[in-house]
């Protein structure tokens, strides 16, 4: 595959003070965000957190009551969707069933009134980019889910958009396809150098391919950072428990926790120790064998925590009902606001 002839100049995105409501539902609350040119950025959160609405706001399909969206420093509020030059790949792909693959890809170029030769050249180039040159004359219904997704991407990048918006692009694929398609998306993004926003509810997808992630909950951005920062230094309990599993303990667990804070740690950072003399101790409530690790549930006061220990044959295994202690290195203990 060749490098596209026209290199795309990457665009930065600035979002500030955005509030958006549908009737009495406050969907986005004081959202502010800065996305670097060329960055692969994710909006991550559970369904209903407002991540898709924020994406549609950038594309022009939603109107905010307050705040601004700047692309390369230019406010896009007065621009209708068809003048924004912001490419969006829809969750359903939204391929038009009455057009061939080539026609679908040519659509945006035709709307821009480009000369026919130029359109043909760019359609061929876009299809080559996603490896679907041989499928140009097929109808969308004749393609597999993964191929349809690539047509949707080709159709969008063909117009050489300022930014690429991906709305849950992997959700309609089976588990195996997801892994390979997400790698393809990452490779493609790197080659085009295109600022890209990826909406997902799946933390693994976001972690594996994105440079930075904005974690959203109930219309609020809870934290922005690289996947590793978010995992190692979550700013709040929501981020801590949404990315990976986390044990959360309050006062009364037998360990000193500052007022208004909670003790947070990851299951694999704790180890089992003898109950005697341990600040944290309690009975084993269940045990699950996961292959590389063994996961124990331990009741501490009112709460139950999870501990994962590496599995080696010959290890001493605890049984349900054993009273055990929990050892935790101080550098792994996080105190987050409740």
């Amino acid at each position, binding site marked *: 595959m060749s490098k596209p002839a026209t290199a795309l100049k990457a665009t930065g995105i600035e979002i500030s003070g955005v509030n958006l409501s549908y009737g009495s539902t406050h969907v986005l609350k004081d959202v502010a965000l800065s996305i670097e040119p060329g960055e692969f950025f994710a909006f991550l959160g559970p369904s209903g957190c407002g991540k898709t609405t924020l994406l549609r706001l950038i*594309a*022009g*399909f939603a109107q905010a009551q307050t705040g601004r969206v700047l692309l390369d420093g230019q406010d896009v509020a007065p621009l*209708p*969707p*068809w*003048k*924004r*030059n*912001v*490419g*969006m790949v*829809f*969750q*359903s792909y*939204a391929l*038009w*069933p*009455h057009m061939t693959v080539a026609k679908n890809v040519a*659509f*945006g170029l035709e*709307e*821009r009134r480009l000369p026919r030769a130029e359109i043909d050249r760019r359609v061929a180039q876009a299809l080559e980019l996603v490896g679907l040159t041989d499928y140009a004359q097929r109808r969308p219904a004749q393609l597999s889910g993964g191929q349809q997704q690539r047509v949707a991407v080709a*159709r*969008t990048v063909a*117009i050489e958009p300022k930014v690429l918006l991906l709305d849950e692009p992997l959700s309609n694929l089976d588990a195996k396809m997801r892994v390979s398609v997400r790698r393809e998306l990452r490779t493609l993004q790197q080659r085009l150098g295109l600022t890209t926003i990826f909406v997902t509810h799946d933390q693994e997808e976001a972690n594996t391919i994105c440079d930075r992630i904005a974690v959203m909950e109930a219309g609020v951005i809870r934290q922005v950072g690289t996947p590793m920062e978010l995992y190692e230094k979550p700013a709040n309990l929501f981020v801590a428990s949404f990315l990976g599993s986390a044990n959360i303990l309050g006062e009364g667990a037998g360990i000193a926790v500052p007022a208004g804070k909670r003790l947070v740690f990851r299951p694999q950072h704790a180890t089992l120790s003898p109950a005697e003399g341990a600040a944290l101790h309690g009975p084993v409530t269940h045990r699950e064998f996961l292959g590389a690790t063994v996961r124990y549930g331990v009741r501490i006061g009112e709460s139950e925590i999870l501990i994962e220990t590496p599995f080696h044959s010959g290890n001493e295994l605890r049984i349900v009902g054993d009273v055990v202690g929990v050892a935790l290195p101080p550098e792994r203990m996080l105190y987050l606001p409740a």
Partner: protein
Amino acid sequence: MRSPGQVALALAIALFLGVFLVVPVATVVYVAFTEKGGGALTLINFVDFARTELFVRSFWNSVYVSAMTVVWASALALPLAYLTTRFEFRGAMLVQTLGFLPLIMPPFVGAVAMQLLFGRNGSVNLLLDEWFDFKIGFMEGLNGVIFLQAIHYFPFILVNLSAALRNIDRSMEEAAQNLGSHGLRLFRRIALPLALPGYIAGASLVFVKVFDDVATPLLLNVKEMLAPQAYLRITSIGIDDPMGYVISVVLIVVAVATMWATALVMKGKDYATTQRGGGGLARRQLKPREQVLAYAVVILILLLVLAPHFGLVLLSFATVWSFSPLPDGFTFAHYARVLGDSSVYIKNTLLYSGLAAAIDVVIGGAIAYLVLRTRLPGRQWLDWAASTALAVPGVVLGIGYLRAFYGVKLPDGTPLAALWIVIVLAIAIRRLPYALRAAYAALQQISVSLEEAAENLGATKARTVRRIVVPLMTGGLLAGFVTSFATAAVELSAVLMLVQSNSDAPLAYGLYVLMQTPAGRGAGAALGVIAVIIVAVCMWLSQLAADRSQRARGLDI
């Protein structure tokens, strides 16, 4: 599993369809291909048809009128469909109710009234002549048929097209906007092609309906069209003349060819794109100036559509109405007359339609059950046979009954075809496909597990049908009954062939006869108004029945 009861039921239905649908139609086709007087198979009748200038002209006139009706109906339907699916428009409800109008009043009912409103010396032209010194030939010759059919049948296109537009996922349009398209261009490139199957379904329905219509052209005094020629040939020359049969075969062929062509065009174009949570095209607010324009378009179309209704009511109260924009005076005499000595028409209509609708619901329900719930071999054939009635024009069915049953004599010597029950059977066959769809819809909504649960608890098949299936289907069947009843009440083309005496005639026939003479028009119009009221009330009841059964079923939809 097949029980003797199911086999007996299937055979009974097959016998019914065989005798009252297949045999009459087959008779028509057979006669068309046999020599007059002799029994030898021949194509000579078709050669005669092609050599008779009148028939060829009639054929092309029918094609022209049907095609132009589709064109004008599309011109009326397209803006309304665009308006109601693409914009937040308060008039949308009004436009949607237009869909029921052609069912309430078929075009022949208002034909004479429209002549008085839009004819050469009708109200509109008299006023135009007085004010602006010119006239418009709305109703001249074939134009009159096109005009009348278009304003009656455009809702078929409107309803199908709007439904198709509403089924397009919003992301289809958003993706186009995202790539730089908007406005009318976007509608033309994305929404319209995706809605094409719906449009074609509506358009072909209109084409066939207009092609098969006998009474509307005749009431407008247009004789040189194919379906009227079939009627005239049989009634004026006689039941033995082969030309009526040849024309019938041509009518069937055109209907089948239209449906086949439609199916061919639609093949591979099933664009149901709605995703969960997606739903219809995005709507936007109309700007004030656009709103004025939109209302102007809707009101103009509404005035046109309501003109036959308005004219009919006016005519039914008029003393004399001729060469003047409005009647000279008003009277209740016509209603007194039709409710008095002509009330036999109304009584017959209620009886015939009620019986026909009952037959349809029973047979439709039984076929739906056999097809969806049993493994009886050949059960699909019952469905196909019943549905072929769609392709058989009413006049053809009527001719077939006459020919097939006239020779069958009762013990006292009266031919079978002269009995009023034959009219009921013809109407029942004509309406059966619609009742069948209603029965399918009703049965498909019932989960099989409800029946399995009853059998699991010890109920036999027959008792399960009685205690579980029938009660659950009641709402849907009732809606089917009322719709069949209502449309049967204004069925004319088959009836026209079969009525032997006025005392056996239903309302539609009485209206047709009365409308022929200026003296009878008032009474004819009064009958028309009564028919419209009966049908409208039935439609409303059917809607009520459907709504209630939906609600009774609660969330199980």
